[in-house]
């Protein structure tokens, strides 16, 4: 018996099958593409210091992520990517600064809203602890940006307009009386002046500002970049101050501002970047009100309703990252600067080196603790002193704890100096360990 098939019915079935097949194929493509995007190869490099400034744009750079490896610390990651420790910590709340989990992916906040100041010469934003140096004119403006360490609450960095009065390579540090007095209280007698070298806190380059007593300089404590640790000066990583020194002529204008809340646009998208204010909350409130006023003006002018809940969230989280608040005009291109993943470098630039153990060297027992994390944290903190003191964690032979051993030191004098520094700077009571094998 032959089945009679209606050709029109067959055609409908064929059409349905073709439709299903095409849906499946398209689905497959989409899935493959999203998987491909997700597993995309990390970029080898990312721009961290120099960016073109497009006309009408206030936002530069792009966010990135990097996967941590064993032994990484956030200060090492920060330095490699030319970020301050403040920025990396704020962008990655809850991540242990000294003993982060290997394998965790952390955010590199390499996108910045330019401060609300003339785009000329040097502009330093104390709240974001970042310096911007503008080159060129309105047609082709380029900005170089570096993280800085700024003054403490007791000795804050100055604000206002000034200029670079003079500059010096290999500067001598003339110890101010106030700093000498602070050190004397701790039992540390400083000389009247410190010549160039590893003990000199100015590092290798200094730009003296027209406001007397204030400098932009390098440092012998690179881990302090992104901290309120200076006596009012602005300090940069050694590799950054060298670039700034070479790029900056005498008389370059310098404007120092304090803007924890930044509002800016890029590609027609409005961004807000919030930082924890440097001062007490009262003073931060004034800056916040300014930012809100600016947003209200933009909302009125553009006729677009801002997501005030989101504004509030960004402000409270204060992660120091430009967050899109609203698209200013319909049909504008979506922000092209998406977050990218960066490969973990083979070697992190500036990471403290720990020399191999030597049997004929002197050491200092810095700590004897039960918890491995505590030991690793302490060793990392000692390693990041300036000048560095090498330190490592050693498991105790009975497996009942860990020791933090600083060294190797060439002689007993070096070991005793380390004990003194550990005591003065970190309040650690170190014990000198004789060499295992006498020379």
């Amino acid at each position, binding site marked *: 018996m032959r089945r009679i098939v209606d050709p029109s019915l067959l055609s409908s079935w064929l059409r349905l099958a073709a439709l299903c097949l095409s849906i499946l194929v398209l689905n497959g493509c989409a899935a493959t593409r999203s998987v491909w995007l997700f597993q995309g190869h990390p970029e080898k490099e990312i721009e961290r210091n120099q960016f073109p400034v497009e006309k009408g744009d206030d936002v530069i750079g792009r966010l990135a992520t990097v996967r941590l490896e064993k032994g990484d610390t956030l200060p090492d990651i920060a330095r490699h990517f030319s970020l301050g420790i403040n920025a990396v910590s704020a962008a990655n709340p809850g991540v*242990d*600064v*000294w003993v982060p989990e290997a394998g965790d992916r952390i955010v590199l906040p390499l996108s910045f809203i330019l401060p609300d100041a003339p785009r000329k010469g040097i502009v330093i934003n104390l709240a974001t602890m970042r310096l911007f140096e503008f080159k060129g004119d309105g047609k082709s403006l380029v900005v170089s940006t570096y993280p800085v*360490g700024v003054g*403490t609450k007791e000795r804050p960095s100055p604000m206002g307009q000034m200029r670079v009065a003079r500059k010096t390579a290999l500067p001598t540090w003339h110890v101010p009386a106030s*700093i000498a007095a602070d050190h004397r209280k701790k039992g540390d007698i400083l000389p009247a002046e410190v010549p160039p070298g590893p003990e000199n*806190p100015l590092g290798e380059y200094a730009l003296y500002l027209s406001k007397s007593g204030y400098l932009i300089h390098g440092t012998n*404590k690179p*881990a*302090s970049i992104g*901290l*309120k*640790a*200076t*006596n009012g000066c602005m300090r940069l990583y050694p590799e950054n101050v060298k670039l700034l020194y070479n790029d900056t002529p005498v008389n370059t204008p310098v404007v120092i501002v304090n803007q924890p809340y930044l509002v800016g646009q890029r590609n027609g998208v409005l961004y807000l970047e919030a930082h924890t204010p440097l001062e007490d909350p009262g003073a931060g409130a004034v800056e916040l009100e300014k930012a809100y006023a600016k947003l209200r003006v933009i909302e009125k002018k553009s006729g677009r309703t801002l997501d005030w809940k989101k504004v509030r969230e960004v402000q409270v989280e204060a992660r120091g990252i430009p967050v899109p608040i609203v698209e200013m005009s319909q049909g504008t291109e979506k922000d092209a600067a998406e977050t990218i993943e960066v490969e973990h470098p083979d070697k992190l630039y500036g990471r403290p080196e720990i020399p191999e153990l030597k049997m004929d060297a002197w050491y200092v027992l810095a700590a004897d603790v039960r*918890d491995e*994390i*505590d030991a690793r*944290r*302490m060793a990392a*903190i000692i390693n*990041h*002193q*300036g000048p560095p003191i090498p330190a490592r964690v050693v498991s105790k032979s009975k497996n009942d704890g860990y020791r933090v051993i600083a060294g190797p030191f060439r002689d007993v004098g070096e070991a005793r100096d380390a004990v003194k520094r550990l005591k003065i*700077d*970190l*309040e650690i009571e170190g014990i000198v360990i004789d060499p295992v094998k006498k020379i």
Partner: protein
Amino acid sequence: MRTNLLAISMMLVLGSALAGCATSGDLEKVQAQQKLIDAKADQALQDAQAAKADANAAKARADEAEKQAAERERIADEKAAKADAAFQKSMRK
């Protein structure tokens, strides 16, 4: 008539007496059963109290473990904060 009444009364007394005898036998049985049930109830109560005590002890242990974990976390955070504060101080000139 009187004879009838007497007969009825006697039947009632006899019935009552017979019924009384049956109740006393049953009563002993019931009392024995009650004792057993009572003992069982005691056991059940003891078991329940023991289970409750165990549960309370387990909860107390869990609470204590949680408290200790929170305390450890607090101490770890405190240690980290203290170490970080010392580090930040050491970064001054």
